[in-house]
């Protein structure tokens, strides 16, 4: 945790910076510390013994923290006031969902390799893992420790656990999803982790995922957040992914929430020597949807790939804060973040890359490309390269543009009307990311969503 201390100088007040922000904040004069403490109080007191110590530790951390404000550098562009204005409730009774209610979210490739969580609670009757090799362990985290005692060595062990929302999740832990792939196991069937929000108003839901890919193993995972009703709720999710030596994890994260939803999601990945992590994140925003995507490479010759797409309309916000933290030489990373913002939406990308002295020969490339479809939409994009090592390649680029008139004209000159031309070009911009998804049904589902979302 880094704490910045301002020694001197006059700090601008909100009123000086922006009078309207100050006015709106005055209305929600909420104590950011008390609010956070109240959120912790919503947790279920009954948990498995093996989690107790971790939970207590996280609770102690949370007590020292507060909900961040826009004065925190990491939250400069994303104002959490609206979150503070809502009192959330805990999920006490799980909603019993029928199979037919979630059928449209099922992936045919994963009929027998899926875990379903309803409002954060494991739904055993909707889950099925029969297609997975026997040696893998895929199921409920709470119950796993009896036959997998090593799980304690991995749970809540990723760096960055003291970040406020991660700590809040850990302090409230009850259950989660575990995916355990033993050494040298190649799992061909993709695994679908489906998190359904029933949309019961004002629920606080805190999903948790722990993925451990043993050395030499390979697995493809879909972390999928969907909704049944368009209400306001708060999802605070944490996924921890451990990629051991020479293992490969393909991770697809899809975030589809309601207009009024708050979703703060953490992905923390640790990579050991020679491992590969290929992540694809597709975000459709929410009242606030934030993805903290952190990669820590702990060995040489790792490869990390991060492809992000945010597609936002209406008044939605989508914020991606990524971190690739190198620590050893000869590692490579490729990152492309795309954002399409329409209407009055707000897209944020902050891409931090740390290359310390030890990480010589790092080869990292980061590209942020944004498309503004409406004059009232807004995009803030910021690379944050912290490079100490002197013998590295770190390329980065950022563009924010509108649809090119010449490209629209080119299509029109071939008989395609301007609306279809705009749709086609917007769609084309998005597909670079979506086309990388290897699960066909998911790819075409997203293509359909994106195609119909482009209004031209």
């Amino acid at each position, binding site marked *: 945790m880094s704490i910045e201390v301002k020694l001197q100088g006059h700090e601008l007040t909100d009123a000086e910076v922006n009078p309207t922000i100050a006015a709106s904040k005055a209305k929600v004069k909420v104590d950011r510390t008390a609010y956070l403490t109240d959120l912790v109080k919503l947790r279920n007191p009954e948990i498995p013994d093996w989690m107790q110590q971790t939970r207590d530790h996280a609770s102690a951390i949370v007590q020292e923290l507060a909900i961040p404000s826009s004065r925190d550098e990491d939250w400069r562009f994303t104002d959490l006031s609206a979150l503070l204005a809502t009192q959330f409730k805990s999920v006490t009774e799980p909603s019993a969902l029928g199979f037919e209610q979630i059928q449209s979210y099922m992936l045919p490739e994963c009929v027998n390799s899926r875990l379903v969580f309803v409002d954060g609670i494991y739904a055993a009757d909707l889950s099925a893992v029969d297609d997975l090799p026997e040696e893998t362990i895929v199921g409920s985290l709470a119950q796993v420790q009896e036959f997998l005692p090593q799980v304690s060595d991995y749970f809540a062990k990723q760096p960055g656990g003291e970040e406020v929302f991660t700590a809040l999740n850990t302090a409230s832990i009850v259950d989660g999803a575990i995916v355990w792939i033993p050494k040298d196991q190649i799992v061909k069937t993709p695994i679908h982790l489906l998190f359904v929000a029933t949309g019961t108003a004002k629920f606080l839901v805190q999903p948790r995922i722990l993925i451990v890919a043993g050395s030499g193993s390979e697995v493809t995972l879909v972390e999928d957040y969907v909704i049944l009703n368009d209400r306001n709720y708060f999802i605070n999710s944490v996924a921890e992914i451990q990629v051991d030596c020479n293992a490969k994890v393909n991770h697809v994260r899809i975030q589809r929430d309601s207009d009024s939803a708050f979703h703060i999601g953490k992905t923390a990945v640790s990579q050991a020597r020679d491992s590969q992590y290929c992540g694809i994140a597709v975000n459709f925003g929410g009242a606030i949807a934030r993805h903290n995507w952190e990669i820590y490479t702990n060995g040489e010759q790792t490869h990390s790939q991060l492809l992000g797409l945010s597609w936002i309309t209406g008044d939605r916000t989508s914020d991606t804060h990524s971190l690739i933290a190198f620590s050893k030489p000869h590692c490579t990373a490729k990152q492309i973040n795309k954002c399409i913002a329409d209407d009055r939406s707000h897209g944020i990308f902050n891409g931090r890359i740390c290359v310390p002295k030890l990480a010589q020969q790092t080869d990292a490339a980061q590209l942020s490309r944004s498309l503004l479809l409406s004059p009232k939409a807004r995009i803030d994009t910021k690379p944050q390269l912290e490079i100490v090592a002197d013998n590295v390649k770190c390329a980065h680029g950022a563009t924010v543009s509108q649809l090119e008139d*010449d490209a629209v*004209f080119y299509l029109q000159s071939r008989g395609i009307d301007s609306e279809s031309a705009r749709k*086609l070009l917007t*769609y*084309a911009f998005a597909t670079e990311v979506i086309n990388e998804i290897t699960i066909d049904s998911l790819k075409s589902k997203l293509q359909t969503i994106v195609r119909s979302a482009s209004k031209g």
Partner: protein
Amino acid sequence: MIRDNSEVILSVKNLTANVDGTQIIKGLNLEIKSGEIHAIMGPNGSGKSTFSKILAGHPAYEVTGGEISFMGQNLLKLDPEDRSRSGIFLAFQYPLEIPGVSNRDFLRVSCNAKRKHESLEELDPMDFDDLVYEKLELLKMDSEFLDRGVNEGFSGGEKKRNEILQMALLEPKLGVLDEIDSGLDIDALRVVSSGVNALSNENNAMLLVTHYQRLLDYITPDYIHVMAEGRILQTGTKELALELEAKGYDWILEGATV
């Protein structure tokens, strides 16, 4: 080929046009009849591409005076897509790259837009493939070009071939080919020109913009126009191109200012 009783495809009278407030086209006159091949030559910056794009309806150019009639209708009233559907085709001097849209989809959508306009049944992907493979052969193009993004990573010559492939699919009434020969090696030039020749017939017309006699060795024009400073200064037959190649443009420009 020139015939007296051919129908007039394009008639441009006294055209003036601005871009960003600067006049670029300054009183241009041109008439093209069916079956004819016209070539426009002229120094850099004389307005050839501007004129071509005005014909196709580029929104950056503001027509301030004169008229353009195409097949008897007022062209200036039509949107670019309607101009295309009614038979104007512009092969761009610099074709755009559109990554993410496959060439195959693009060609099919474009072809079907035209068919719909003509009240023809739209082609499904299979029937379209049959059609496009036939045209690929005409331009000696590999079918792998269909699966790439539109012009994405194409070489200069490949882009030009792709333009003519589109013309082959759209079968326009008037093909406006802006420097279709630039950047082509001699083999590609042969392929592209024989494509153009195969596509031109007595019911349509071609307007070639070029700097080089070389193209005109392969595609024989009926008329050559010299454009300078936004207007056509001189019109002649194909021999004029040889003269221009030998003497340059100065003698025409000087003649005009006198």
